[in-house]
């Protein structure tokens, strides 16, 4: 019998429940507002996607295990138990119908962090063997190969060689004592190597000492997406070990949403201690460099553009002002979408949804929300700061015959670097 079973799942849910969870469940009045904040509901009109409904398994465990009244109900046989059938049904709600975008947590009038609770439910689904194939595969590759997309060091080295040859810049690998250690997402290595090139260009101009670790270059964390602290811990540990080994002062989280959450906010708690180094998002760093005058740009893009805030970076990461300052320094025609910043709508592919092939059709359907937003502003270019968002947006735009380039913000900055006088 598998180690992952219903009992383990329920136990994991029990483990996840804390004071905030209890306060949230005690406060919900079933007002239904969270549905209006969720693109899976607004674009399908199916009430089952109402965020608070997604946490029902956790609520049942909380009620029957952590409330006196619920214990009494359970003793009298009146409580509804969490079953395997229920968890199978919820698996599709939680993995296909939620990107952990956190928008519901911003809207809930009683202040419930519903997304935080959905993240907890994923722990229970993993422990009861109810994770979708796409995410199980990604997690397995991440643990066994080092990257969810199966990108090995060899592939990275090849890309680096290409870039070095094309630009004449050096990309430092395993340099001990560097100030910064950059992390990359597999997507950047495979789909958007421009990001690496941009880093090299910017850091050269700003005179930043940096490095990439050959042992832990992957920033993404499938453990966070699938919702397993155990897997996430293992993956974070690799980065921590590498950073400690190279004695870097700061680790840079790349243009990837959940990687930031994983390494910046959840990592220390996964390994159970504070880091000896800082973690900074690339946008924070660029902003810092620009504010301190070390990063200089020239010229402004005249094309009308808008910025898609990656949920994990803005709403769950607190990086909101930086991308706007950066954008305005290189664009003369930056417009905001109607709902932006903390209230931005998700691209529909976060939280592992884009890695879950089963959810493809639904994901493309809910992209409609973004489409409506884009039609309102009618821009020529989209800028974002997450490789995953970028891929999902590109696919969505193509599907809807909307011809428009999607650019990473770092790349846009590097394109406007003031040419070195040397």
């Amino acid at each position, binding site marked *: 019998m598998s180690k992952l079973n219903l009992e383990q799942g329920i136990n994991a849910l029990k483990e996840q429940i804390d*004071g*905030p969870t209890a306060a949230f469940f005690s406060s919900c009045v079933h007002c239904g507002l969270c549905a209006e904040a969720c693109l899976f509901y607004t674009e399908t009109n199916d009430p089952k996607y109402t965020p608070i409904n997604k946490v029902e398994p956790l609520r049942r465990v909380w009620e029957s295990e952590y409330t006196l009244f619920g214990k009494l109900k359970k003793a009298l046989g009146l409580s509804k138990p969490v079953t395997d059938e229920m968890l199978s049904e919820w698996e599709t709600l939680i993995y296909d119908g939620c990107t952990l975008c956190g928008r519901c947590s911003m809207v809930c009038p009683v202040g419930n962090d519903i997304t935080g609770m959905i993240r907890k439910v994923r722990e229970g689904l993993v422990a009861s063997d109810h994770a979708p194939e796409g995410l199980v595969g990604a997690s397995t590759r991440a643990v066994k190969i080092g990257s969810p997309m199966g990108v090995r060091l060899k592939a990275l080295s090849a890309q680096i060689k290409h870039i070095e040859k094309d630009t004449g810049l050096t990309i430092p690998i395993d340099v001990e004592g560097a100030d910064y250690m950059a992390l990359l997402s597999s997507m950047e290595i495979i789909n958007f190597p421009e990001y690496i090139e941009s880093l090299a260009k910017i850091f050269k101009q700003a005179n930043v000492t940096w490095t990439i670790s050959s042992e832990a270059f992957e920033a993404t964390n499938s453990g966070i997406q699938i919702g397993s602290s155990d897997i996430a811990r293992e993956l974070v540990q690799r980065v921590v070990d590498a950073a400690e080994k190279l004695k870097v002062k700061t680790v840079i989280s790349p243009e990837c949403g959940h990687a930031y959450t994983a390494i910046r906010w959840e990592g220390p708690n996964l390994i159970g201690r504070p880091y000896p180094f800082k973690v900074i998002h690339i946008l924070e760093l660029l902003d810092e460099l620009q504010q301190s005058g070390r990063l200089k740009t020239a010229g402004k893009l005249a094309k009308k553009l808008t910025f898609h805030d990656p949920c994990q970076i803005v709403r769950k*990461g607190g990086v909101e002002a930086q991308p706007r300052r950066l954008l305005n320094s290189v664009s003369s025609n930056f417009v905001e979408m109607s709902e932006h910043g903390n209230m931005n709508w998700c691209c529909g592919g976060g939280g592992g949804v884009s890695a879950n092939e089963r959810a493809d059709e639904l994901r493309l359907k809910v992209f409609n929300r973004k489409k409506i937003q884009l039609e309102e502003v009618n821009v020529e270019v989209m800028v974002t700061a997450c490789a995953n968002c970028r891929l999902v947006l590109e696919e969505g735009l193509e599907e809807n015959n909307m011809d428009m380039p999607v650019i990473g913000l770092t790349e846009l900055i590097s394109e406007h670097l003031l040419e070195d006088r040397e």
Partner: protein
Amino acid sequence: MEFFSNANDFLMWTKGSAFTIAVSIFIVGVLVRLLEILLLGRKTDYSEPRGTEWKGGLKNIISRSVVDKGTFKRAPFVIVVGYIWHIAFLVVLLFFVPHIELIKAILGLQWPGLATPLVDAFAVVAIVSMLAMLWHRMTHPVMKFLTTYEDYLVWLVTFLPLITGYIAFHRMIAPYPLALGLHILSVEILLIVFPFSKLMHAFTLFIARWYTGAMMGRKGIES
């Protein structure tokens, strides 16, 4: 009214032992519920904070009362009626002179009351908004989907004090001691149901808002 020889006995019972019982259950229940929540606690957060928890927590307690524009546009009914209901209910609860006398006797706190016809108008608004919310709950797909028996029960035990209060105030049932007794009894039922239902949100929403706000404040997210 088998147990009472007359309406006065019933009123005396509701004002006497029934009130004592209801208040006791309410206090024990609420304290247990709050301690159950608070004693569960949180794990230590080892991530480096960007902002402070208390600032975010306190701010969120207040700022959550204001909804964002987009959500308002998508669900104006819930928000508008929700606001109207809570304001009207609080006005009736806190500014009707007989209620002020009750609060003064129990808590020793006192403030000026509002003109009775004004309170009466608010009571009508509260009653109508509750009916509207019930209608919405029964017809809106999301609300219908989420609604449990508990929601209807809570609606009923909240509605009863309002409607019995209205009936008692307008002396629509005779004798008056029966009308007033029914009103007080319905409040007692509300007090007893309170700790075991979502009515607890009146207290826990501050804790919930605090926790979420603190988490966001720590991360430097504007809530």
